């Protein structure tokens, strides 16, 4: 069984809490909500979500019939379902009620000094023992005191009584964690009402504005008036040709074209300007520039495999010209396909900038135009969210610290010796606490020979 000491009575807890709110302050409800939320998130992790992976993915995974059912009943968009949002709403109310009523008031009780308990109160503790020594009471108490101090206990004492505690900071854990959780909800709400985000694939020398940003329906924010220009973008490879890093040089330009800031970004190294962060999120080859008799054309590229890209140029109803690209520094291979040929046939290989004559046309491969994938976001609640993260982390770390409270009463005997009663509580680590107390007793027994064998445990002592 779990043992614990409750230091705030229910009636005391209910003081000052509005009746309606207190109806939600149930830990049973918390457990139920946590289980329901966990189950919903589990279903959301199992079923591809439309908002993240697209509707096609749902159909691809489950087939058109079952997939359509999942979409129809909102399973494929479960994080926006009224059920899930309702659970989060209820958890918020439950957390506010519980925190105000049961968690925060405990901080006040921490500030109060520990009372110095008498032998009969100590005897009722879940962990306790007693012994008789021939030594005087003050000597025994001093020894206990110095041993506890050397083990990190904070001790307060009078002539023959002592109270000590260890790991009091652990008691702050619920308060700090719950403040963090409430701050997290606040930070996320601020972001949802005023922030925006988006993704755009921008070709080299292209300009990106924020017109197509995404934000919540209920929105009070403002979009920036400035835009971003991609001045340069490149890919750095490992020796085997895999991508190691992508870079883009971006200029922030105002409505008159004036450059306000310029920076090279890469994955994990974003640009920040007026509260908006721009991230390098991906990279690709967008199009190939080819000149026909000196006339430049940009043909969009398609990815055909891990490294091969191709551009297609229909010449007439039957003939297609294809440009196959292997990499930025590789020559381009030119193919043609007509219905009579089962496979496309290679016509020529073009090195960059060198013209070749194909029939009556002079063809020149000018350039490859990369496209940089820019993810952007404005997150006004981020500061609060980050502070919340810090609180939550600190809170849960503190929750691992077991709080120990210990009381000692040393009663002088008429014979000149004394009787020691020692007991305490540790809700989170009773066994180790018991062991430590037994060790302390052993040390005392070695230092001051015990007068007679005393009962070891409290029920007998009672």
């Amino acid at each position, binding site marked *: 069984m*779990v043992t*614990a000491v409750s230091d705030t009575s229910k009636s005391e807890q209910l003081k000052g809490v509005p009746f309606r709110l207190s109806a939600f302050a149930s830990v049973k409800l918390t457990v139920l909500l946590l289980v329901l939320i966990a189950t919903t998130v589990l279903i959301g992790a199992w079923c591809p979500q439309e908002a993240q992976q697209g509707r096609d993915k749902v159909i691809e995974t489950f087939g058109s019939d079952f997939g359509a059912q999942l979409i129809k009943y909102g399973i494929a968009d479960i994080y926006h379902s009224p059920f899930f949002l309702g659970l989060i709403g209820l958890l918020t109310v439950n957390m506010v009620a519980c925190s105000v009523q049961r968690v925060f008031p405990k901080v006040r009780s921490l500030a109060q000094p520990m009372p110095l308990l008498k032998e009969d109160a100590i005897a009722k503790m879940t962990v306790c023992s007693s012994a008789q020594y021939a030594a005087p009471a003050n000597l025994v108490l001093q020894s206990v005191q110095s041993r506890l101090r050397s083990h990190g206990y904070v001790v307060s004492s009078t002539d023959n009584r002592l109270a000590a505690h260890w790991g009091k900071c652990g008691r702050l854990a619920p308060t700090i964690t719950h403040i963090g959780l409430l701050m997290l909800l606040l930070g996320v709400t601020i972001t949802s009402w005023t922030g925006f985000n988006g993704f755009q*694939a921008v070709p080299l020398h292209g300009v990106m504005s924020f017109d197509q940003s995404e934000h919540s329906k209920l929105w009070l924010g403002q979009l920036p008036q400035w835009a971003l220009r991609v001045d340069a973008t490149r890919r750095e490879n490992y020796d085997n040709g895999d991508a190691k890093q992508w870079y883009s040089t971006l200029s922030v330009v105002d409505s008159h074209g004036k450059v306000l800031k310029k920076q090279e970004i890469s994955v994990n190294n974003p640009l920040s300007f007026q509260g908006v962060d*721009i991230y390098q999120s991906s990279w690709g080859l*967008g199009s190939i520039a080819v000149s026909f008799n000196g006339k430049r054309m940009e043909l969009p590229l398609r*990815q055909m495999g891990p490294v091969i890209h191709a551009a297609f140029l229909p010449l007439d109803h039957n003939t297609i010209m294809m440009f196959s690209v292997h990499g930025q520094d590789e020559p381009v291979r030119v193919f043609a396909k007509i219905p009579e040929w089962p496979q496309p046939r290679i016509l020529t290989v073009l090195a960059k900038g060198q013209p070749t004559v194909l029939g009556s046309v002079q063809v020149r491969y000018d350039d490859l135009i990369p496209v940089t994938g820019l*993810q952007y976001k404005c997150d006004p609640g981020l500061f609060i969210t980050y502070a919340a993260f810090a609180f939550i982390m600190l809170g849960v770390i503190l929750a691992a610290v077991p709080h120990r409270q210990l009381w000692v009463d040393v009663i002088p005997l008429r014979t000149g010796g004394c009787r020691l009663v020692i007991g305490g509580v540790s809700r989170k680590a009773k066994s180790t606490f018991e062991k430590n107390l037994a060790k302390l007793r052993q040390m005392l027994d070695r230092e001051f020979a015990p007068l007679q064998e005393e009962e070891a445990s409290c029920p007998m002592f009672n």
Partner: protein
Amino acid sequence: MSDVQLALTNTAGISSVASFWAFAVSNASARFHGKLTKVGLAVLVIGFVALTGSIVMRGFESQRFPLSNLYESLLWFAWAVMGAYLFFSRSYDVKHLGWLASLTAATFFLYGSILPASQHDIKPLVPALVSYWRQIHVPPLIVSYAMFFLGGLAAFVQLWSAARLKSVLLAMAGLLAGMAAVALGTYTETNSFVLQGLFVGGSLLGIGTAWWQLGSFKATAGNKARADMYDEVVYRAIMIGFPLLTIGIITGGLWANAAWGSYWSWDPKESMALVTWLSYAAYIHLRIHHECSAEKLSLVAISGMVLTLLTYLGFNSLGFSGLHSYGRFKESGAFIQASPVVSYQNASDTLLS
């Protein structure tokens, strides 16, 4: 992999098997119990030291932090299980847990050693993973998983000590069904839905009936003091694992925000970590509530262990995470559209698959 590194890893693997036998026989033999327990512990210490050396050497040899594929994460996991057991054995008399901890470490060694060779290799990292955040984000997660595993194992011993034998067997059957699904998913081409059914159905049935057993039948006399002690060990393991998981999830969010501007994208793997986190939050609050018996709490800890298995290994091997959705191609061009989700999947799959 150098010969020394291989020798150290093998020493750790063999030690985990040897300590398993020493602990297992010690439980069966009253005469040699004390001696064999000491042998088991000493062998486990040797294995732990060897594995520490192996992981450090791997880092030096590859010139990077040695935690970037599934094989390395399994080594870390085994290391953390061994280390956590040794840590607890200093404060608690957990000799009945020794064989389970060693068996878990040995199973993970075995699982790692028969992974495809590509998972052992030291591969270059994709752009999203080239960051110091990797060192900060992944180790707490792996260590938290190990703590939750150890907590779950201690929960079995708690139930056993409380003479809840039928519940132990049923819950164990549930866990084994989950593990079998993971193994089948890793090494065979079994249909994903069958695997998912086996994992979810098997573990729900096992733990559900174990719970029902607790409610319906009274326990025969058990060893209360031992049951209480293991209940505390479960709690302590969870109270160490929970902050580590919290730190892992939050630093993952910080990394994602630094890399692609979104700290949470409801990626399946991310969501699974949240499910595990919420389930342990439920455990913590159930304890506060004081109305739940230690045996029921043990079953909650075992459920958490199953969810940890699902988050850590189940997701990829059971085909939950849509493994084919690495990159989407834009209709009209060759551009690989890397939304946060896709990027995150790339990152997490490279890390832990």
